[in-house]
């Protein structure tokens, strides 16, 4: 496979070996093999149906490989490392009828976070107001996306998997999110972003992963401007 430009020295945090995910007569992933070094920001690019979301879901432990294996921080049973992974999907993964604090309060219970100020803190991190009592259903799309990111950050994971975090987000919020991601990467977190708006991350990202037809076809240190969407 393609060697990552500068990953050779550091031991990888994620190792994927010949990963295949098949749904009946359709293969979403077709033999992905890759290694990822820690504390870097990766951007995954590719057409619809290239397997980006399935790759992310496999890393999150949501989708079990048909064949092949994933190892994160040396563990192949991803349930053991789920505390270290934060996953933000394309849908919001939030209850529309509950307010921001109620939503995060419930998810904090799932991670057994007892520090009651944590929820309010993480909401302020994404620049929302913790005292807002409206149900999420009445939020704008951009606010929902930010709250969704807050949910993924709630348990302070070491690895972040973000699926289309900038879709329908206004330009300023998007730049705020990019700055947040950059600071978290500097703090040692490994971040994967699937996005169609790669230009937003052109300066910040460490590496671009190009996917096509269920495989990683290229890894580059810079955005290939000619092909950028």
């Amino acid at each position, binding site marked *: 496979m393609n060697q990552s430009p500068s990953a050779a020295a550091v031991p990888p945090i994620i190792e994927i070996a010949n990963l295949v*995910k*098949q*749904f*009946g*007569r*359709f*293969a979403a992933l*077709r033999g992905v093999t890759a290694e990822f070094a820690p504390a870097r920001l990766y951007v995954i690019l590719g057409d619809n*149906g290239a397997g980006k979301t399935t790759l992310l879901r496999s890393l999150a432990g949501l*989708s*079990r490989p*048909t064949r092949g294996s994933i190892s994160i921080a040396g563990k192949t049973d991803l349930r053991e490392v789920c505390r270290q992974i934060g996953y933000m999907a394309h849908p919001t993964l939030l209850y529309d009828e509950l307010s921001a604090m109620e939503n995060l309060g419930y998810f904090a219970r799932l991670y057994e976070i007892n520090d009651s100020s944590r929820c309010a803190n993480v909401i302020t991190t994404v620049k929302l107001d913790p005292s807002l009592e409206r149900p999420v259903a009445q939020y704008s799309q951009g606010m929902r996306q930010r709250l969704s990111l807050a949910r993924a950050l709630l348990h302070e994971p070491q690895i972040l998997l973000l699926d289309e975090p900038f879709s329908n987000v206004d330009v300023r919020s998007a730049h705020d999110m990019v700055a947040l991601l950059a600071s978290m990467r500097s703090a040692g977190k490994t971040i994967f972003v699937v996005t169609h708006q790669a230009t937003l991350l052109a300066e910040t990202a460490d590496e671009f992963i190009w996917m*096509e*037809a*269920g*495989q990683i076809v290229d890894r580059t240190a810079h955005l290939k401007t000619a092909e950028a969407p």
Partner: protein
Amino acid sequence: MKRAFPILAALTGILLSYALYEALVAAPTEQTMGNVQRIFYYHVPSAWTAFLLFFINFIASVFYLIRRSPTADAIAVVTAEVGVVFCTVVLVTGPLWARPVWGIWWTWDIRLTSTLVLWLIYVAYLMLRRFSTSGQTPVLAAALAVFGALDVPLVYFSIWIFRTQHPQPVIGGGGSIDPRMLHVLLINWAAFLCLAALLCWSRFRLERLQRQVEDAQALESMLAPERSR
């Protein structure tokens, strides 16, 4: 292995014709029920075969849940499907026997009813396999098979209580059976077991082939867009 198939087919053919001759001609005519009693030689062996197949299905399902072996799953599909075929035979020949003997097509008799419930459970099993969208259909199906197996003794027991409280026509199972009839019964059972083995074998080969085709198509479904570009 492949050469064994026509041998088994020939053996089944011979056994079935011999068993048919025995059932229709050689077996003594029953005194009270007359010739209609000869349905017995098809009805009972089919029931035993169906139960045996469902039992194998249960074992294979449990094995699959523990080991996740694809072969165990294939065996589970095959036995469930052939089992439903034999169970259908039981449910069709049952009323055809009941009508002339008791004057009714159907009665909520313990054996008839448990067979019907078993049939329903396994039809549901096959439908689940057909309609599942998950990449892990075998797991769901195996779980259902375990539930079905747990249910059968409860069904049997509950109908047994039900029957002792409601008068029912007595079925001629009172222990003693003419040794000549038993002989014919066993020959028929052997013949139907061979038929079941033959059907299972063909279905197993079909299943294996189908999985290979699905794998190939899955690979191709990812290649196709690349080619056309």
